[in-house]
């Protein structure tokens, strides 16, 4: 084992210029005696993984819901070479016009049923407010379209279950939920580390989302104003924990392959007292069957430290922030666990080198500065890339199977299981249903300031 790794950097090693220049977070972490955990190809400064991924032939997409997030989706699709947006839909003409600018060749619809009737549309993205997902998604699946439905799936367990069951009962089409971290290669890389227990016994974990913002969107039209602020109304919103927290909580539970057995919640409106009845500051404490807990801390009233997840173990703590991770080892941690990940040494040394005063060396180590194309590395990008690729392969498999053997639904389902094993990773209906049910209950606990025991039947699809 390389002892250099454990030596903290001395003051001379860290040039103040570099600290300010933006290596600051890494530098801080180095000084705290941590190690940056990075997948090895990034370490060697090669082109990012997404450039190397072969792409499938195009899939023609229709986007239903052109609010801020829907428009983000349309822009991201524009970065993929095989995701032509052929149709867009929104009930609000202004949003439709704005979205049309990013997808000028797309046909515009104000009624989603007309978009679903458009035979040119092969796959549909449902990016409407949560409470509207159910009918639209069910209709899309019934129309034989491949569907990407945003997360949380719905605002009630009943609706979420309806969506998941519709997806389950339509094996001929592909379904993906908008839990985008499930497609993120950075998160996948961390799975091995967490699941082999190199961090020791679970002590506790937390997920934080801090961003000072009102969440209120403006509109000159009073009726429209109420519609676009569905997040601020308890009748149509799953709150901070549902709309935002679901992503972090889904990943935490996926990492640990555990679901909580109970949740206790707290919430208040601290800052944005504008007539809303959705808390702007919440905490939810989840209990697991091994005695450990996970805390979700979300607020719209303070931005300090932004959003990240922490996993605390008896051998090490793990911080996952944006697309980086750091390990903070305990001094009494066994050497063996650490050695398994010795391959990270290379990157560590290279980062070390970059911090030792010479910024030009850093750029020489990499093909391009890391932040050059931030957008291409977003979880949304990976998720949409997976959606297009998986949809094409699914569609091709159904076509090829039917052409070869005719209609044999049972055998087709078997064959598709095979095809599923080669998919790009993405959230399926089962995972999305379970995480949706979890945050719906967490939101209930927050609203009632109570402890709720999570009954297994709430998470069963049937």
């Amino acid at each position, binding site marked *: 084992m390389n002892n250099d790794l454990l030596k903290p950097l001395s003051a001379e090693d860290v040039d103040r210029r570099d600290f300010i220049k933006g290596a600051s977070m890494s530098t801080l972490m180095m000084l705290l005696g941590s190690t940056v955990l990075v997948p090895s190809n990034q370490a060697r400064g090669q082109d990012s993984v997404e450039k*190397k*991924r*072969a792409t499938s032939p195009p899939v023609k997409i229709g986007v239903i819901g052109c609010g801020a997030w829907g428009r983000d989706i349309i822009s991201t699709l524009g970065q993929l070479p095989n995701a032509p947006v052929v149709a867009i839909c929104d009930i609000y003409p202004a949003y439709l016009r704005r979205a049309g600018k990013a997808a000028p060749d797309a046909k515009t619809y104000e009624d989603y049923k007309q978009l679903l009737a458009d035979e040119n549309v092969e796959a549909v993205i449902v990016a409407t407010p949560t409470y509207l997902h159910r009918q639209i998604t069910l209709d899309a699946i019934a129309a034989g379209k491949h569907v990407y439905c945003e997360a949380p799936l719905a605002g009630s367990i009943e609706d979420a279950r309806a969506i998941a069951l519709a997806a389950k009962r339509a094996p001929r089409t592909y379904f993906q939920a908008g839990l985008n971290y499930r497609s993120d290669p950075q998160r996948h890389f961390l799975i091995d580390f967490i699941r082999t227990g190199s961090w020791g016994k679970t002590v506790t974990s937390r997920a934080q989302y801090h961003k000072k913002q009102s969440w209120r969107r403006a509109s000159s039209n009073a009726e429209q104003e109420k519609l676009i602020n569905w997040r601020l109304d308890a009748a149509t919103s799953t709150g901070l924990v549902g709309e935002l927290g679901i992503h972090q909580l889904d990943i935490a539970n996926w990492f640990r392959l555990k679901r909580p057995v109970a949740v206790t919640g707290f919430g208040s409106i601290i800052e944005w007292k504008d007539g809303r009845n959705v808390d702007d500051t919440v905490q939810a404490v989840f209990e697991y069957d091994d005695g450990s807990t996970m805390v979700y801390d979300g607020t719209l009233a303070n931005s300090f430290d932004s959003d990240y997840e922490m996993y605390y173990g008896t051998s090490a703590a793990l911080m996952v922030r944006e697309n980086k991770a750091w390990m903070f080892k305990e001094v009494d941690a066994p050497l063996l666990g650490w050695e398994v990940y010795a391959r990270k040494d290379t990157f560590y040394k290279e980062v070390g080198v970059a911090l030792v005063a010479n910024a030009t060396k850093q750029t020489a180590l990499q093909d391009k500065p890391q932040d050059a194309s931030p957008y291409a590395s977003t979880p949304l990008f990976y998720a949409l890339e997976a959606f297009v690729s998986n949809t094409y392969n699914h569609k*091709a*498999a159904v076509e*090829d*199977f039917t*052409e*070869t*053997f005719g209609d*044999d639904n049972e*055998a087709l389902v*078997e*064959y598709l299981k*095979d095809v599923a094993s*080669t998919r790009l990773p993405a959230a399926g209906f089962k995972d999305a249903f379970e995480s949706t049910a979890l945050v719906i209950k967490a939101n209930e606990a927050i609203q009632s300031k109570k402890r709720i025991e999570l009954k297994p039947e709430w998470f069963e699809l049937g």
Partner: protein
Amino acid sequence: MKHIRNISLLAAALICAAPALAETVTYKGKPGSSVTISGTSTIHDWTVESKLIGGSMEFNGNLDKPGKVDAKGESMISVRSIKSDKKAMDDVMHAAMKSDEHKRIDFKLKELIAEGGMKFKATGDLSVAGVTKEVKFPVTMEKGDDNVMKVKGELDTKMTDFGITPPSPPIAGGVIKTGDDVKIVFEWLTQKK
């Protein structure tokens, strides 16, 4: 006299024709089949696989008896369904096989000679990437439950025989060069119609 001769000729023809019509059995391809294509390269050996072998075959007569079998057969494989666990390699393979224009590999049986014990020698036309070539290969057949007939066989051939240039994918500085020789191994599940 002439008409009696004609009648007896006609009767003779009918008698000869009847057995042929009575015994034709048709088998149709069914899920559970597999075909693998294996080859080499300067870096590593490779295998690609498809589970979709479609088509049908029909026989007339006893398959155990050595000699020429009265048989017809046609099968097809969707090129798109041939895959490995490396997507990049699959894309290179599909491009080399010109899968956009030639979506299928087709085989048409021309002759089937039984050697006894359900072993045969097949001769037929294999069409890949728009090129048709006659191939000969050994085949065995196995009867299964539910009127299933499993047809197994293998054949060695060369990519260049079908106008396919062994791909040299543009990675690792073009160091990887695929070998020309490939081996096709198939197990085709068919069921009596």
